[in-house]
């Protein structure tokens, strides 16, 4: 027969100070774990959402980043004319040859940031999906106008609609703000490619991104372009290109999260062991009575394990609640592949909260195991005599 859980819960209430300190310690461990994972999650998610599997991205052969690449105008038009490039309703190819530069701008909070300025073709918004102008209007061809990503607005001066932002020796009028589903593009400034090109790097694009007529045939498209003797290019699936940029930093952040939370957990588990041993020894007579009444040692073991896990879960829940306010908080780091600042939001997902609770339960289980074992193996007679 099982010992009712109510017994454990009442026992917890009997010693509130020790229950609460133990649970609070675990809450902090869980909070650090969830917060660090939310950071890694947010960064990864920004790059995972960048780019579409339906698009192909073309760079000069050997250039592993847009910044290092160079694509001649003739190459760009050769690519646009290929049969596997999808066409829009007007039967024009959905292809955007782009200029990519990284400029310096002063953050409002101080310090220089490196920001991406992307010179796009008027078709870029059709080539890429999930873009939305959230304020203002689209770019007008032939004008010194820019669209500013949502994550840049508010963090840099002169990014409001109608403001003039100066870079590359020109003053650019901000005509709109755009969102892009939380992707890395939201940390970019967009202008027309023909406007950006002469100001910065002269007659050369950095990349060509086009929609594939049949996304399933990517391997064939890639092979055909890379083997074309006129072109000298490497071809990537657009979403994979950005995902690859997230791999290293995400791994580092995950490792740090697990390392820090793991080490903290060891300390918290030792605390839990202390608490549970104290609980077991102060309740030795009670346990003896339970055993005398006919409860099996196995019942006592699981009863104390449940008690330890309950304390830990209490801590886990508090820890998870503590991290909720950081969800959506925007922070920034550098994407070293493009050498530019990428802003992203902490992402506390339901899955992450569940893993926080599992982590807490695990700490409770490990911390409660030996004390529970001691309780179960208690010699009844000795304990009864104590009472």
């Amino acid at each position, binding site marked *: 027969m099982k010992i009712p859980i109510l017994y454990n819960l009442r026992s917890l209430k009997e010693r509130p*100070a*020790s229950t609460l*300190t*133990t649970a*609070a*310690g675990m809450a*902090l*461990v869980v*909070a*650090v774990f969830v*917060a*660090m994972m939310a*950071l890694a999650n947010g960064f990864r998610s920004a790059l995972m959402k960048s780019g579409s599997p339906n698009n192909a991205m073309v760079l*000069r*052969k*050997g*250039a*592993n*980043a847009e*910044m*290092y690449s160079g694509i001649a105008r003739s190459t760009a038009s050769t690519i646009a004319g290929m049969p596997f490039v999808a066409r829009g309703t007007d039967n024009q190819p959905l292809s955007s040859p782009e200029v990519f*530069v*990284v*400029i*310096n701008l002063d953050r409002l909070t101080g*310090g*220089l940031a*490196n920001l991406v300025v992307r010179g796009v073709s008027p078709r870029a918004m059709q080539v890429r999906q999930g873009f939305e102008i959230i304020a203002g209007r689209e770019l007008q061809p032939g004008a010194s106008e820019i669209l500013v990503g949502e994550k840049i607005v508010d963090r840099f001066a002169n990014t409001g609609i109608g403001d003039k932002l100066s*870079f*590359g*020796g020109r003053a650019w009028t901000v005509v709109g703000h755009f969102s892009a589903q939380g992707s890395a593009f939201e940390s970019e400034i967009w202008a027309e490619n023909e406007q950006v090109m002469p100001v*910065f790097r002269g007659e050369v694009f950095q990349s060509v991104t086009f929609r594939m007529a049949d996304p399933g045939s990517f391997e064939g498209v890639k092979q055909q372009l890379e083997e074309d003797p006129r072109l000298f290019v490497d071809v990537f699936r657009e979403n994979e290109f950005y995902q690859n940029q997230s791999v*290293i930093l995400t791994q580092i952040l995950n490792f740090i999260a697990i390392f*820090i939370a793991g*080490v*903290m957990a*060891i*300390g*918290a588990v*030792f*605390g839990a*062991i*202390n*608490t549970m*041993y*104290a609980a077991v020894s102060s309740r030795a007579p009670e346990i003896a009575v339970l055993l005398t009444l006919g409860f099996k040692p196995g019942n006592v073991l699981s009863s104390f394990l449940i008690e330890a896990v309950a304390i830990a879960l209490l801590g886990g829940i508090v820890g998870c609640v503590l991290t909720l306010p950081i969800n959506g908080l925007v*922070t*920034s*780091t*550098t994407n070293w592949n493009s*050498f530019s*600042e990428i802003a992203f939001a902490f992402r506390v997902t339901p899955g992450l909260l569940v893993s926080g609770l599992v982590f807490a339960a695990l700490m409770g289980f490990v911390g409660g195991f030996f004390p529970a074992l001691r309780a179960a193996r208690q010699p009844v007679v000795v304990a009864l005599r104590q009472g």
Partner: protein
Amino acid sequence: MKFMRLIWVNLLRNKRRTLLTVLSVTVALFLFTTLRSVVTALDAVSEVGSEARLITRSATGITFALPQSYLERLRAQEGVQSVSWANWFGGIYVNESNFFAQLAIDHETYLAMYPEMAIPDDQRQAFLNERTAVLVGRGLMERFGWTLGQNVTLQGTIFPGDWDFTIRAVYVPDDPSFGDQLFFFHYDYLYEGVNGNIIPGWYVIQLNDPGAAPAAIDRIDRMFENSSSPTKTETEKAFNASFVTMWGNIGFLVKAIGTAVFFAILLVAANTMMMAGRERIGENAVLKTLGFQDGLLFRLVLVESVLITLLGGALGVFASKLAFGPGNPVSSFIQGFEVAWSTVILGLVMATLLGMISGIVPAWQAMKLPVVQALRRVA
């Protein structure tokens, strides 16, 4: 102190509990000092650059180069001792995960400007004399198991093709924060390799007098203000510091985690001391009856508590000092990462603080114990 034995016996009365508490403080302080060292390493990198050297780069952005013609104009500035320049190469060694910085430098002027790099004279000559020679930091040599005279091929990303180099010299930095993971080669080699289709990435300027830096910075940037390539000049120190900030707000992150670690362990230690206090109500009543003063009991509990955390803290702090001494594997990733003595001291102070705070409530309770009531429980 004649009561040491009493404290000692109290510590040993529940050996398991004392041990577990000591160990939990150990892991916490290990973590604390390790995290703290990340911050000190990054701070040191921001501090390492010279105030007497200026870096002039394009005002447009870090990836934009500057005209060759600026060289003579910079040299002609008053207070300028010498001018050198460098370019970022961005090559890949075998595969992309083997990242390290490669710089094409104007070798003669650059080496003369950096006495921070200790290079044996024969190696220095060998590096200067050969067009494809490279100068490599000792840490980088060890990381890839390279040897002097070995040929190394990098795959260019900015400058396409395979580039062959021969390692001719190894430097040891005089300050670990300078970094021993750099790879220097001749700008001339790059220049020829791309058929002269290249201009300097940034200029390095050695001033006669570091005090003249603000004026010189102002003069240089004004000189190029209205040209096609305006410049941004700063001291090398400020330049290095700006790279550190690119990682994001690491300082805040580490402080937040450090605080959480501290409080989590504070709770564990405080819980232990409260449990110990509860067990000893009777004993303390007896001690008081025997004539022990309130203040003495207060101190006894506090000393016991501090002993636990200080012992645990010392173990943790010195474990991290041993694990992350000079040349530890993490330092190839975070330049100059090691646990400094100042961090060790800070860790011990934190441990002491931890003991004081966690002992204060039980110590107070022991002091304020009503003797008669407590004695009744003993009976």
